[in-house]
């Protein structure tokens, strides 16, 4: 029996070894970049293999990079507003800008202030969307959803889910309290404790992407704070009643960007990958990736996408949305810790 097993192990290993010959590109990513539909065309065109590893939250991603050795990573996906943080710690390499024109981008989605530091460009935005309110319009009054007040009114107690990411949700709680995300510092944060705890008490669960989708789709909750098109778009075919809006207080704009990791041994290949993802075809695939959807930063993707896809993403309303949305809060280390502590308190009470 053991001999047989040994043989089968050797056979499996031999099989794996033969597939492992192509060059590798190591990418630290969010789950939307793991979609084979997105990666395969690039892998075939350049005869490489893109290895992906997901991470959660910028702090964890940066820790991961710091514990790695130079050359371990080639590219990474990072919140556009956090590029500065990564550059400050010497983790990103300058990004050559030839061939990476942002002329056809949504102007608000370029975020050059964040991706260019002291005149050097380190990252390019690729996808954006909103953290606002997602809801089941068959179960709630859509008119209520036009104001964040509804979540604190008591009317929807026990039917609310909170998206488990402290930055956007604290940003939204701030908007409700009249604090712009740019002003969200340690002092302002303390004033948010009470409304956050109240929101926590009114909610049924605090959940990641899938649990939130499940809860919305199965009717366990009717409202999700922190959600948006990225959460409801994939479920559109299944349940067209799932909808989202940006309330009068505003919403949060999330924008993810791509950067080359400092110390990479394959800067050309990394650049090629970034060029591919920001090309109209790559943008269209990324926008409708299996994990979550989002608006492509590059408007040229619109020529490649179907009208139906664009309708789901509400392509034509973007001008209005972009005008009303605010960027993620960018806390310093101390405020970030305070935010996470506050978030843990909310989870634990």
């Amino acid at each position, binding site marked *: 029996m053991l001999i047989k097993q040994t043989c089968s192990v050797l056979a499996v290993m031999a099989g794996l070894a033969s597939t492992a010959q192509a060059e590798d590109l190591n990418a630290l990513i969010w789950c939307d970049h793991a979609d084979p539909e997105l990666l395969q065309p690039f892998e075939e065109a350049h005869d490489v293999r893109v290895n992906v590893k997901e991470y959660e939250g910028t702090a964890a991603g940066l820790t991961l990079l710091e514990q790695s050795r130079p050359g371990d990573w080639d590219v990474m996906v990072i919140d556009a507003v956090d590029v500065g943080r990564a550059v400050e710690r010497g983790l990103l390499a300058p990004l050559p800008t030839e061939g990476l024109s942002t002329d056809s981008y949504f102007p608000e989605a370029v975020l050059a202030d964040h991706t260019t530091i002291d005149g050097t460009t380190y990252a390019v935005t690729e996808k954006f969307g909103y953290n606002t309110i997602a809801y089941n319009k068959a179960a709630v009054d859509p008119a209520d959803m036009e104001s964040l007040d509804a979540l604190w009114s008591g009317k929807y107690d026990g039917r609310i889910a909170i998206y488990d990411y402290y930055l956007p949700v604290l940003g939204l709680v701030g908007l409700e309290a009249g604090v712009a995300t740019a002003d969200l510092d340690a002092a302002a944060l303390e004033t948010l404790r009470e409304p956050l705890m109240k929101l926590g008490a009114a909610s049924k669960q605090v959940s990641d992407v899938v649990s939130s989708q499940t809860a919305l789709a*199965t009717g366990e909750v009717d409202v999700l704070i922190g959600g948006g098109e990225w959460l409801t778009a994939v479920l559109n075919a*299944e349940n067209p009643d799932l909808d989202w809006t940006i309330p009068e207080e505003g919403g949060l704009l999330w924008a993810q960007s791509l950067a080359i990791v400092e110390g990479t041994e394959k800067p050309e290949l990394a650049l090629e990958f970034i060029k591919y993802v920001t090309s109209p075809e790559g943008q269209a695939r990324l926008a409708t990736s299996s994990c979550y959807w989002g608006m492509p930063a590059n408007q040229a993707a619109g020529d490649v996408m179907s009208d139906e896809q664009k309708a789901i993403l509400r392509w034509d309303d973007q001008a209005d949305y972009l005008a009303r949305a605010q960027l993620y809060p960018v806390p310093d280390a101390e405020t970030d810790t305070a935010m996470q502590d506050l978030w843990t308190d909310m989870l634990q009470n």
Partner: protein
Amino acid sequence: MRILSWAYLLALFAFILLPVVTLVIFSFQDGRLPVPPFKGATLDWYREILTDRALMEALGNSLIVALLSSLVALVLGFLAASGLARVLLPGTVVMRGLLIAPMTVSYLIIALGLLQMFNKVGIRPSLLATGIGHVVINLPLCFAILYAAIGEHQKSALKAARDLGAKEWQVLWFVAAPMLTPGLAAAFFLAFTFSWDEFIIAFLLTRFDVTLPVEIWSMLRSGLSPATNAVGSLVFLVSVIVVVALELTLFRKGSK
């Protein structure tokens, strides 16, 4: 009493089997959501997972890690058990305690400790690192099973072989191993199962090449889908076939 017994048996079986049955049924769901109502049967999800490159690689990785790590754990455990059973030294109790100790520690702690040590000495997270972790958790298991299997009868047989001039490796290979076959098989089988199904060590100690539980976890996190049910059902089906086959061949003799 009798009726009560059977009612209890049925109730608990229903409780135990309920999630598995639900899992399997909704793996055939003809729709995007694996929850009631059942919308009709399809095999699409099975086709999807069988053509999923990442998933199939994870499956292969899991097989390799489980086979190799349980083999290493088995050999180390066998040597230690035979060694400790041979003579009673003053340090025996301490050594036995040390070897058993990892069994009383949460996997999460073992994973975290290894992660930090590997970071320090510059070993990248990989399947090898995961395999090392799995040997740590399975070594106590293999050792305990084999140590318990060496009774007085076995001890005297080993002693006789040594007295007759057999070399140590001959004693182990020709006398101890054949005598302990049921124990060796059980230990290997258990170790394999634990490694195959282990999540947290593999989650913290891998990077790109992941094992099946880690891949399933990222499937779970990236979208609700009957495909997850299909993977679970397939793993379940294959495991049950293997278990039943073993039950009918290997363990039948041992149990009677």
